[in-house]
Every structure is written in C-alpha cells, then in structure tokens.
C-alpha cells in the first residue's frame, strides 16, 4: 500500500500497469502506439523504457489481430493487457471478443482461462471527431463471459485495473476519457472494493442517482445543486457493470424509493435499460415512481460543437428527478 498522493486518473492507470508488470512478469502490454509514444493518452508512458520492447510493444495496426494474439498469449501462460486506441476502434475486434475472449473458458469447461484485459478509452466530452467518443459498453455487457468495469475515481482507476489484471477472467476495462485529467488525492492500492461491487459515493434520502464512469462526477454535481434546492440525492457508482451489484443498488433504491439512471450511452437496449429493468423488478413495491433515465440520445455521437446537447447534464438530471412524482408537486 502506498502513501496518499495527488495524481490524475491517467497517472493512476499508468502506475497500475507499471506495478502489475513489475510484480508479475507474465503481464505484457501491447497495442497501437503504446510503445515509445506511450499511447495517444500516454497511459503506457515509460513502460517500454522500463520493461523493454518484449513486455510493452507496438503492434501492426489491426485490432482483431491484437485481441486474437492476446487470446493466444493468454492460452500460453501470459496475462496480456491490450489497448484499443479509441472506443470505435475496438469494433474490428468484435468477433474475437464475442466469439473467443468471452467463450474460451466455457468452451473448454474451465481448462483454458483467458486472463486478458482490454482497455478501451470511451465516451465523449473531449471534443473528439466522429468515432472518437462512442460509449460502447452495452455491446460488451450484453456478452456473457466478460467482466465489464469502469472507474470514476483515481483510486478506482488504479485499484480496478490492478484487479482486472489479476482476474482469472477477461475484463473489458472502460476508461472515461474525459476523466483522464481529473485529479484526486489517493493512497493507491488501499481499500478498493473488488470487481462486482458498487459504491455509495454520496448519501441521500430523497432519491438515488445511479451512474458509472463519466457520469458519476455529473451525478455528484447534480446532487450538490439539488441539496441547495433542498433535495437530498444519493449517488451510487456502479464501478462494475458485469458482475452487477444488485444488492448495493437495490438497497440504495429501496432506501429512497425513487431513482434516476444517468449514463452517456444511447439509451435503447443499453446498460441503463438493464438497470431500470432489474431494479424495478426487485424493488417494485418500494418505488414511488418509475425509474427514469437520463442518457445519450439514440443518435450517432455528435460532432464537437453539438456534443453538449447530447450529453447528460445537471439540468437534465434534475429535470428527471423533478419528474419522480413528488407528492408536493
């Protein structure tokens, strides 16, 4: 365990990779531009210099190949961590992920495990041009056999990535791009709950905001504003989409009786749909109003100058909260 220090999420991720590679020499990192450049977001900065080109290396430009090679390396005793440069550039690897990464353990009745981490910088808010801001978590969360996690804090970025790397199963690790430069004081490695556990980021009694990744800071901001208006909002950070922490989420929603799910991805047939469906099923008689969703629209991700109209914001979250059929309104 480390001393508390102030660092960005990007730095915490770099440290997680570094520490994992130092601890276990079967951990290898590869992808496009992850070598000398350190990745387009510099998450792999310094790894090639420290561990050599055999442990952190650039590959040809071919995402299916990258994931496919990771499958083979994992079959032969390595723990590959691969980077997809941006969300939409993971799509070429979709068949490898769905038909192999997700299925190998099951196919071989547990004999071949694939401890692979696929890191995907995702979501918007950074002014990226087309194909650089997709929220693609639903595709993976719907696919049995994968773990899907996404940090919203610096401490979680470190802790969840370390856990993902030691996991015996493949993990799709979604990194919220716009939080890369968020700063926080954290004692890396300390007290991070395991994959599969949600966290209550703020207590509240009137309604529960359920968020993950890039929308957690937004939910907290909305709760701040709501507090000024006299409404007490609880904020749950899912941290792990698969496995899903039914217990924590349902306890939270039962305690308030009202909930809003906040996610950047398009809403239709998404993770947010699942949250509404399963929480409603489990908490139906506790609910004073249907669980609302504030999500990205069902449109292709917009160009930079229009993305603010697409992304959930504080007003939209508070409008949704206002819609939760309060007796006094």
């Amino acid at each position: 365990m480390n001393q508390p220090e102030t660092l960005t999420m990007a730095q915490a991720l770099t440290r997680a990779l570094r520490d994992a590679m130092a601890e276990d020499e079967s951990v290898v990192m590869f992808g496009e531009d992850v070598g000398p450049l350190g990745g387009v977001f510099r998450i792999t900065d310094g790894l090639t210099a420290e561990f050599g080109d055999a442990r952190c290396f650039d590959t040809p430009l071919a995402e299916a190949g990258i994931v496919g090679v990771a499958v083979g390396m994992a079959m032969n005793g390595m723990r590959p961590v691969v980077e997809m440069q941006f969300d939409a550039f993971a799509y070429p690897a979709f068949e490898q992920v769905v038909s192999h990464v997700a299925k190998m353990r099951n196919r071989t009745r547990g004999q071949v495990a694939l401890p692979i981490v696929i890191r995907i910088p995702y979501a918007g808010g950074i002014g990226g041009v087309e194909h650089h801001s997709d929220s693609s978590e639903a595709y993976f969360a719907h696919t049995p056999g994968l773990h899907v996690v996404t940090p919203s804090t610096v401490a979680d970025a470190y802790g969840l990535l370390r856990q993902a790397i030691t996991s015996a199963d493949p993990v799709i690790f979604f990194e919220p791009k716009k939080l890369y430069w968020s700063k926080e004081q954290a004692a890396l490695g300390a007290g991070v709950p395991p994959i599969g556990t949600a966290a209550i980021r703020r207590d509240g009694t009137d309604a529960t905001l359920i968020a993950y990744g890039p929308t957690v800071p937004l939910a907290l901001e909305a709760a701040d504003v709501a507090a000024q208006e006299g409404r007490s909002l609880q904020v749950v950070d899912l941290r792990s989409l698969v496995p899903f922490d039914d217990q924590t989420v349902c306890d939270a929603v039962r305690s308030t009786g009202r909930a809003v799910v906040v996610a950047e991805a398009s809403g239709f047939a998404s993770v947010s749909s699942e949250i509404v469906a399963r929480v409603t099923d489990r908490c139906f008689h506790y609910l004073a109003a249907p669980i609302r969703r504030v999500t990205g629209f069902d449109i292709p991700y917009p160009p930079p100058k229009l993305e603010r109209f697409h992304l959930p914001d504080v007003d939209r979250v508070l409008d949704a909260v206002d819609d939760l059929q309060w007796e006094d309104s």
Partner: protein
Amino acid sequence: MDHLVMTSDPRRLLPSDAPVRLISPEGEPVPHETYRLPSGEALLAAYAAMTTARRVNDQASALVRQGRLAVYPSSHGQEACQVAAAQVLTDDDWLFPTYRDVAAMVARGLDPVEALVLLQGDWHCGHNPYERKVAPQTTPLATQLPHAVGVAHAARLKGEPTVVMALCGDGATSEGDFHEALNFAAVFQTPVVFFVQNNRYAISVPLARQTAAPSLAHKGVGYGIPGEQVDGNDLAALLAVLGTAVERARGGAGPQLVEAHTYRVQAHTNADDPTRYRDEAEVGAWVARDPLRRLGTFLENRALLTAEQAAALDKDADDVAAAMRAGLSKDAEPDPARLFAHVYQTPTPQLAEQAALVADEISRMVDG
C-alpha cells in the same frame, strides 16, 4: 533508390512455380531439386496414420448417417494433409485445427471420441487443449490464426522451442483475420507455420470466386513470409515441405505459408448438396488422385509395405472405428449445471440465480 529499404528479397519468398511433388499419382518417385523423399520408415508410419485417418473419417460419416453424430465435415481425400500436419510436430508444438481437422487431431494422439464431442453436440470442445497441445477446433473462419500467433509469440518470449501449426481452408484465406495473423507473425518473426488446405471449395464457392492470385502461396511475399505450394495428396511431399517449414521456424527464421493443393471429394457436410454446384467428372478426377492409394502403391512397389503389414494396419483402423462406435453410442446426457459452471471462474451472482432456477425446475420435474 536512396530512401527505400528492401526488408527482404522478394524472389526468395515466392513459392515454387509448381506444387512440390515427390511421389506421382501413379505411386512413382519424382525427383526434386530442393526437397528429399522422407525415409521408408517415416513414410510407413505416415501411411499407418493415414489409414487410421481415412477410417476415422469414414466411420464418422457412417455415424452421421445412423443419426449418432449430428454433423461431420469430413476430410476424406485430404488425409495426407491431416497426417502430415500432425506428424511434423514434436510434443512441444501446438496444433490449431478447424472443424474439418478431426483426423489431424487424432493423428496427433487425441481420442477420436473426444475429438467428436463438438460435432456430437455434447459440448463445444471435448478434450483438454493442454494435454496434447491441440487447440479447440475453431468454427469462425480464420479466427484461430491470430491465436496461433499468440501462442507462438508467448513461447518465444518465454524462450520455449514451440512451433505452432495453424490450419485453415482456402475460403478462410479471404477473411481479414488471415491477413492480420500473417502480418503479425511476419513482423515479430513468430514461429508459426500457416498451412492452408486448398480443397478448392468453401462450401459451394469455388476457388476462382475466392481468389484471383496465381496461388494462395503467393500471398506470403506480401507479408515478407516465404510461401510454398505442395501437392496436397502426396504425403511424402507434405512431410518434406511442412517438416522443413517447422524446423525453419524452430530455428528462428520466422513464419512460413504452405498451401496444399487438394480437393474436398465429399460434400461440405451431410447438410450440403454438391450436385448444385459441381459435376461428377471433376470429383472423379480427384478421387483418382487418392492420397492413400498413392502412398500405398509407392510403398508396395518398393516392398516397404507387405500384405501382412497392410492387414495389420487395417485391423488397427478397425479397432479405432470400433472404439468410436462404442464411445459415441453412450447416450448419457450432459448435466445442465454445466451451462453455468464455467462461464467465469466464479459464477456471477446473476448466474448463480439462473443456475438455481434451472436446478429448481429440474428438481420439480423429477419430483413431479
């Protein structure tokens, strides 16, 4: 030119103009300037394995007709390729088979009954891949090729002498994964032999709709990988060419691409109807080039295979077939709990709930 570095000599990478052949279709030796005929001993061992391979294929097809196997994509007529792919490997090496390569898996030492579990419908893979270093058979075409590269690349990083034999068909060479795998292997000089069984059809689609290349082996040069083409019904030539490629890879010289010219003499699977897309004359010409008869004639002519030996081999093959019939007649149903047991190392809470639901249903069925 001042600023262009030629990273490898293109001529060196091109395949022979004609497929390498060491034994003619009539069973006579053919001299070759590069490749030597394997020893009589090696050829006899290969012939034995090919006899078994043929019997495995035909027994499996018979089991399909009897309804005891759901489907079987036979490699009947391609057994020389199947046997050579397995026999050029050491125990340290890996074999990556497709759905059509049950005979190659058996030639590598797998129990045919385990190798048929996928096609029998019990489970997706019936063997432990680590036991004989045989990957699960892959259905999504060409997707196994980058896996093969990954296994080989990991072996190299670990300093192990492993070579990986990665199989695919002519159709699979059109997939993007074929391209990405060969390119990776070339860039990292990974010890993989990419072995394409060009049986001239992808289900109904003939080779001419799959490629306009002079040969599939000509794809090698575009990656900086040497390509070679070989008569796929000549087990001697296959052993020589694949054996050389494996040893070259083991020696650190990187990957190689080998194309075997052969033919799918039977239907794609029992569900297929080849009369819709090809005529009997074409098939007949290839039946006449049968690999088993060719090597048999060669060995007999040279007194390397006696009548007794041949009878003994047939007997061994009979035993294998009998064991297959017995093994596949077991009607034990797989346990439904299996559905949930290996999706993850530890089932998620969600899966535990779902498993409990099924268990409850079953107990109610038993009770009720």
